[in-house]
């Protein structure tokens, strides 16, 4: 084997013509050792050996892979399909008024959905976001109605309460290592019961109204409750908040170090820790984010109604997760998009409004949502298998 100095011409050095860095190997100090073993094997090297660029797939397949690599594509396809389905049966859906209603339904869901999406990419859940919305708006309402605080100081205090709840959630998850699904379920139960009890004990009912007389109400209304009339549709400012939240979270996820830490926390937690990624800090910050989103949802509702109705239900919590899953987030973490979650919220709203405008029994909506979730889960499973699959060649 060793006395074959002529053979390297057929081995790596030949392919090395296109690969300058291979010179370092073939020109190293022991060519005899290299020719000792490799030539016998390189004869059988397939054409797609190390000299060809990786992923030698067809362009069509590559395009498909590229599309699948965009987690929001599924939600977009679903949105178009559902839109086409309802457009003939509920023409009002595409009118200015119909769109305003759709956006009105989608906005709070989308604000929570993008925050949950970010959290799910990091491999965690938060069931408490809806109840945080109710609890914080209750805090705001009680501070205004019972203590006579201005609306802005009351909102600041309730934001602090929201962040506190988020910090408790996050720290519990990080320090105990318990599944966040269960930790936040506990938070949900505590806050649900607690807010109902406190509201009844302090204000005498689970309904507090008449906040519009508070100091600073006008400016609060401008920020959280403004509307614009376009045609016969009344568009609310919650749409702007929703778009802002989507843009901000999307930028954070794809274009910042924080976003990279989010992806890594959910996709390869152990590796992330070993590479010095601040997994614990990222997780806690994300729980602060969902709590703040809950506060924003609560505040938008509070300012719009001029009061608060304590009526939390677990159904609403699941809807945020459904929206994020429709948006392409994997339940296992490490993959997803906030634009997808925003589209998921829109899809949800189109379906709900479409059923109403088409004159169906609204109870069909739950069926629709369940089917949608199932399809999204199956599609995400396919994507994951596809992305995880290690090509044999």
């Amino acid at each position: 084997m060793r006395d074959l100095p002529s053979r390297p011409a057929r081995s790596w050095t030949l392919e090395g013509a296109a690969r300058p860095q291979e010179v370092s190997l073939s020109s190293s100090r022991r060519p005899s050792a290299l020719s000792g073993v490799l030539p016998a094997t390189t004869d059988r090297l397939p054409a797609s050996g190390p000299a060809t660029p990786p992923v030698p797939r067809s362009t069509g397949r590559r395009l498909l892979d590229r599309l699948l690599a965009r987690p929001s594509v599924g939600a977009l396809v679903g949105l178009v399909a559902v839109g086409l389905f309802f457009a003939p049966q509920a023409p009002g859906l595409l009118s200015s008024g119909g769109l305003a209603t759709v956006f009105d339904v989608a906005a709070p869901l989308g604000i929570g959905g993008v925050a949950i999406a970010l959290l799910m990419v990091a491999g965690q859940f938060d069931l408490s976001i809806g109840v945080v919305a109710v609890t914080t708006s209750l805090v705001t309402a009680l501070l205004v109605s019972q203590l006579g605080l201005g609306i802005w100081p009351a909102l600041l205090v309730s934001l602090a309460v929201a962040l506190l709840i988020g910090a408790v959630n996050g720290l519990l998850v990080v320090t105990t290592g318990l599944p966040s699904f269960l930790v936040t379920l506990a938070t949900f139960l505590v806050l649900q019961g607690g807010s109902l009890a406190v509201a009844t004990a302090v204000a005498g009912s689970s309904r507090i109204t008449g906040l519009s007389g508070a100091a600073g109400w006008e400016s609060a209304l401008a920020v959280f409750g403004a509307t614009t009339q376009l045609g016969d549709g009344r568009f609310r400012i919650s749409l702007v908040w929703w778009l802002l939240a989507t843009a901000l979270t999307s930028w954070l996820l794809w274009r910042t170090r924080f976003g990279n830490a989010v992806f890594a926390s959910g996709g390869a937690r152990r590796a992330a820790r070993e590479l010095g990624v601040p997994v614990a800090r990222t997780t806690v910050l994300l729980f602060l984010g969902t709590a703040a989103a809950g506060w924003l949802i609560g505040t938008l509702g509070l300012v719009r109604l001029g009061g608060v109705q304590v009526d939390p239900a677990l159904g609403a919590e699941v809807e945020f997760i459904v929206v994020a899953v429709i948006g392409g987030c994997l339940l296992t973490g490490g993959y997803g998009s906030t634009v997808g979650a925003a589209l998921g919220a829109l899809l949800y709203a189109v379906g709900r409004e479409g059923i109403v405008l088409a004159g169906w029994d609204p109870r069909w909506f739950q069926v629709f949502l369940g089917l949608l979730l199932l399809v999204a889960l199956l599609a995400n499973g396919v994507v994951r298998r596809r992305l995880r699959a290690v090509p044999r060649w």
Partner: protein
Amino acid sequence: MSTAVGTQPDDGTPPALELRGVTVRFGNVPALSRVSVRLRAGEVTCVLGENGSGKSTLVAVLSGVLRPAEGEVLVDGQPVRFRSPQQARARGVATVWQDLAIAPLMSVWRNFFLGAEPTRGAWPFRRLDVGRAEEVTARAMARVGVPGLDPTQPASALRAGERQSLAIARALHFGARVLVIDEPTAPMTVAQRALVLQSVVAARDSGLAVLFVTHSPQYAHLVGDRFLLLGGGRVAGDLTRADVDVEDLTRLVAGSDELTLLARSLRSD
């Protein structure tokens, strides 16, 4: 990178990383018994042995996952105690685990820079310098023998050997001085193994001390300057390239193997 490398004897400088008489016990069972090894800059040390011979334990000690019950770990002649893989990394000891430290759903460049991403702009508009990150990743991958790679594809699209190359390229780029490579047990094709060997050579030529754990004496002999044979947690042989050729090495590694017994029994028929 024409640093004076190779198998020359001590030139006075201490080894980049050294184990002296290291013993590791799991309960009462010694996984490693008084193992000593010296890793020098620009030198490749191959660790060979059967499953259960202590190879993985050796890697765990070098990378800071396990602390030895007896013996010393020295970096540049200074005794150290790694309490975590992070501490080992901070001292310039990078470990390429069998399948670890790659997030399969993240793109290649995101994996490459994970935990040390380049940014531009001032806070709060500080953002990832994606263009530079992609360019650096492509260049670093080309350096270890994977040219023409699209750094935006997910890491799951990489082949086994390319993932190994990615981890090695990362260690090279971020200034590791000692590289510990635990070769995957999963079967790799010849071309994939060649890719890993190329990365090993690239690391050696950059002046790193490389410890390469492998199952194949043939491949070890291609790149190794020294060969550490482990058996039952003890050093069964500490050889240099001058001591053995491929056939000797193969025979030594397979010496206690069932294959030899089989060959003998077949011959006696």
